[in-house]
């Protein structure tokens, strides 16, 4: 069994994802502003936004049902639960006993499902548009995501995140060429799951092409704050997964203050670097036509297929 200190660190890891996630969003917004020759808001701006939104009153359409009201809470609870399964700066999470990578994906799907229902619930035409597009993306991203998960799980012996990250931290990347292909697929999947630029423009609120924003267009006040926050948590979880599976340098495998400190600092640095890279990439490309998106997802599927072939070599 796990000791009290380990459980405490596990709780801290979960809370760190939840509390640091708006910071990552802030870093991405700042990077995008700087690449567009703007000064941009401070990287703490998402925190201010969330505090401001919580103080505001909420307007709910009288045509909406209970689904519209519970959706932000289900979103937040599902993603915050998923956050506790992710090993962040220690190679294992004590909550790994309760769930593995597939459960995390399932929680993502639950949150997404209720967001789509809420988009349809208020019966505005924007919500319906956003929901149908989101359904198309998620149906296409799912096979790519599962193939990638299977590559990682087969290589490191199990879908349990603690097993995977512990094995990754003990191994080198070199003997596993299939992980290169898995990393390519995973990067495209992260862009798609979090609605970054070739898939969906996160900065727009007034376009016919928006996807995620179209679904949550009717929200205001506390509900909007929860939705934005859970979106940030999802981004942080996926970035932490990418970093810990494909670039595990500096992660701590024992509970001493020094290694945990190094693990935490290197993790924050790596995630920030990845966020800056994604934001920079977003500045250089335009949003793709909706029916070209499957081309990009197909690249992810093909890449993970080749990874599978290389594993069974």
């Amino acid at each position: 069994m796990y000791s009290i200190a380990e459980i405490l660190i596990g709780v801290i890891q979960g809370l760190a994802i939840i509390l640091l996630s708006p910071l990552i969003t802030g870093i991405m917004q700042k990077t995008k502003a700087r690449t567009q020759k703007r000064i941009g808001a401070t990287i703490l701006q998402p925190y201010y936004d969330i505090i401001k939104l919580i103080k505001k009153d909420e307007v709910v359409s009288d045509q909406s049902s209970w689904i519209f009201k519970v959706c932000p809470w289900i979103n937040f609870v599902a993603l915050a639960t998923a956050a506790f399964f992710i090993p962040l700066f220690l190679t294992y999470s004590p909550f790994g006993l309760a769930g593995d990578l597939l459960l995390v994906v399932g929680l993502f799907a639950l949150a997404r499902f209720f967001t789509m229902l809420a988009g349809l619930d208020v019966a505005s035409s924007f919500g319906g548009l956003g929901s149908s597009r989101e359904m198309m993306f998620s149906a296409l991203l799912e096979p790519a995501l599962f193939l990638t998960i299977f590559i990682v799980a087969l290589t490191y012996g199990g879908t349990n995140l603690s097993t995977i990250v512990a094995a990754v931290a003990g191994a080198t990347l070199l003997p596993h060429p299939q992980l290169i292909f898995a990393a390519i697929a995973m990067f495209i999947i992260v862009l798609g799951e979090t609605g970054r630029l070739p898939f969906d423009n996160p900065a727009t609120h007034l376009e016919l092409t928006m996807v995620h924003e179209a679904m949550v267009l009717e929200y205001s006040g506390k509900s909007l704050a929860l939705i934005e926050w859970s979106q940030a948590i999802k981004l942080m979880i996926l970035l932490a997964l990418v970093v810990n599976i494909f670039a595990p340098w500096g992660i701590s495998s024992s509970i001493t203050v020094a290694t945990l400190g190094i693990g935490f600092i290197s993790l924050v640095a790596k995630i920030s670097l990845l966020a800056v890279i994604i934001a920079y990439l977003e500045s250089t490309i335009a949003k793709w036509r909706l029916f070209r998106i499957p081309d990009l997802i197909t690249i992810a599927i093909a890449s993970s297929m080749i990874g599978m072939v290389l594993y069974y070599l």
Partner: protein
Amino acid sequence: MESIQLDILTISGSVLLIATFGVVARRGFMDWLNAYRHQSIVLAGVTAIIGYVTGIWEIYIAAVLTLLVKSIAIPKILTYVTRRLDIEFKTETNPYISLRTSIIISALLVALSYFLTQQIPFRSDQVVNVLLPVSMAQFFIGLFVLVNRRTVLSQVVGLLIIENGLFLFTMVLTHGVSLIIEIGILVDILVGIVISSILLFRIGRTFDSLDVTNLANLRDD
């Protein structure tokens, strides 16, 4: 030491596969040409790694020649010859099989080439084990690009990828044929590209299109 060499070979083979997919996953002639240039640079690197692993110094010369001819000379010639062609000749608007299907088919072709090379029962060293399937995959993907594209211009790119695959194939199996033959093949490719590009320029002038289906029709004037 041995295992590090194997790792380097495997990683370089993977990078070469990724570079090959760059040709399949794009549209437009200039994009393909750039993808082909990147692929040739990677191919030269892989050749140099083969030279390092086997310890034959002639392979280094072959790598340098590959770099010079395939990643500098051939793209320059093709860009120069096609600069006066209309832009609609250079973009592949509707290949026979859509882009996303052809990516999946290419992935299956990679699987097929790994399967096929495992069926060949001969004793081999690690270079053959790792890079032979990659070269066959390149060959198949080049063949697929060749039959899938509609315009003559893009079929030339398919031909070039096949040639890259064959180059790697000979290099892997023989650990470098004699340098004279290597130089001969490269010059052959260079001349072939010059002739075919002049030919396709004249096709474009005569038929006002580079679509191969138009070439099969009888003239009715």
